[in-house]
């Protein structure tokens, strides 16, 4: 019933009617923007809290509403993709702001010839080159080369530096300064040896299972540490995170959150 009502109110459009509808929606959004800006702080917070509550209420009701076992859906399920698309639209709007910020900062660096202005010039040139290539030459070798041979290569290079960062971080962290640090060092050593071929070869001669000696195999000890020590610890942290996320989600949804964007009480 809800679906048919919405389809009656907002039938699919095409051609001129679609563009007129888009223009009308854009005009309404601009008007809403100015209205929201003109509102006093307390009223604006109330509007935001109301919109937040209604948006959260939709997802809560959709989840709790019993689903038809045959279709695995309830009267609200059909709207989930559409509501999710609203977020994508809002994100698309903000992309322009991000690009504007980039151009403003780096454009100013180039215009005033600040130290490092050459890097800013390269960034701006790269931004426009990639934009032009993506918009007008999407299926060409030029765009594919820029993406695959330049962008992906730079990404891979940065990812590769992680190996060296891990070594320097581990060198500083794995020092025997206390009982806990010693345990950490030993367990890290065992797990690492159990994962690499040379470590596994050290205890390769011991039976894999079914014997007391199999408990002394480095790969078995390594797996045991990961499954029975590390795994439960991670699950415990995940429980806390899940409960914490629920608490914050409830606070934001019900307008109980304080601090930052939620400064002051919502009336």
């Amino acid at each position, binding site marked *: 019933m809800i679906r048919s009502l919405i389809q009656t109110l907002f039938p699919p459009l095409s051609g001129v009617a679609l563009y007129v509808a888009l223009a009308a929606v854009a005009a309404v959004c601009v008007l809403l923007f100015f209205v929201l800006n003109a509102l006093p702080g307390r009223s604006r917070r109330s509007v935001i809290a109301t919109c937040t509550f209604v948006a959260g209420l939709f997802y809560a009701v959709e989840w709790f509403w019993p689903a038809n076992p045959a279709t695995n859906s309830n009267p609200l399920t059909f709207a989930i993709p559409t509501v999710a698309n609203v977020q994508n639209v809002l*994100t698309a709007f903000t992309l322009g702001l991000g690009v504007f910020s980039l151009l403003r900062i780096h454009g100013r660096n180039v215009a005033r010839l600040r130290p490092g202005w050459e890097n800013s010039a390269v960034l701006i040139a790269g931004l426009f080159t990639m934009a032009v290539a993506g918009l007008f030459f999407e299926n060409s070798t030029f765009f594919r080369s820029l993406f695959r041979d330049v962008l992906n290569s730079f990404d891979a290079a*940065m990812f590769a530096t992680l190996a060296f960062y891990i070594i320097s971080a581990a060198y*500083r962290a794995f020092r025997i300064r206390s009982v806990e640090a010693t345990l950490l060092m030993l367990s890290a050593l065992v797990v690492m040896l159990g994962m690499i071929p040379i470590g596994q070869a050290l205890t390769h001669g011991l039976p894999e299972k079914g014997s007391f000696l199999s408990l002394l195999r480095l790969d078995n000890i390594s797996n045991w540490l990961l499954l029975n020590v590390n795994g439960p610890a991670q699950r415990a942290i995940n429980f806390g995170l899940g409960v914490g996320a629920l608490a914050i989600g409830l606070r934001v949804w019900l307008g109980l959150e304080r601090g930052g964007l939620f400064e002051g009480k919502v009336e």
Partner: protein
Amino acid sequence: MEHASDRWESAVLVILWSIAIVVMVVRAQRGRDYFIRRIPGLNAIDEAVGRATEMGRPILMIPGIGNIWVIIVQALTIFSYIAKTAAQFGNRILVPVGGEYGPAVYTVAQEMIRDSYDAVGKREAFDTDSIRFISDRQFAFASGVAGMIFREQPAAVFMFGEFFAESLIFAETGQRVGAIQVAGTTQITQIPFLIAACDYAIIGDEFYAASAYISREPTLLGSLVAQDVCKGIVLLLVVLGTLVVTLWGPEAEFIKWFTV
């Protein structure tokens, strides 16, 4: 599409937890006082800001590369507190933002930091360019922030939010310039790197406790206590489930009530 009717026991737990949270928040708002244990990482925030002020070097705050949801909201709430303190001491802040949802985070971060300066009466000291969108690509963002750290030489680096492989790049670069680093994330896979590379790391739901710990706002304290009550319920269920499996074996009918 999952619904409560598929896993009614999950729905019961969610309702139980929600009731606990709302009850504790209401009790806190009516004047009930709650205790929070000391969290070294959060105590270090003031110490780090003070250090940056003494050295005359900026403070860098990185909100990660996640979407606008509870994690980023919590991270930005912590950053707004740090920005207030920095504004009071006249210290410069830098907030590089990036990732696929970076532009959305950028707009929200700008508003929150501006409001923080407003709250302490230092609106004129707010520099719009202190919050910058770097890139929507993960490693372009990482290299941009690494370059920023080397150029700006911050004395304090705060990393709160959703991080992935780039977290170690940030942490190690901050270590190289001698910055004091406080990090908190909900990404289990990144916690070991942050513990190894940062001076203070906030693990798990200490991250969600940060806003309550810093502000001591009754509503937030009540919510925090409610989280502990919820974890107590989970612990009770784990113990019950262990006893049931031990006594009746894994094939018992009501075992599935305790399985995911």
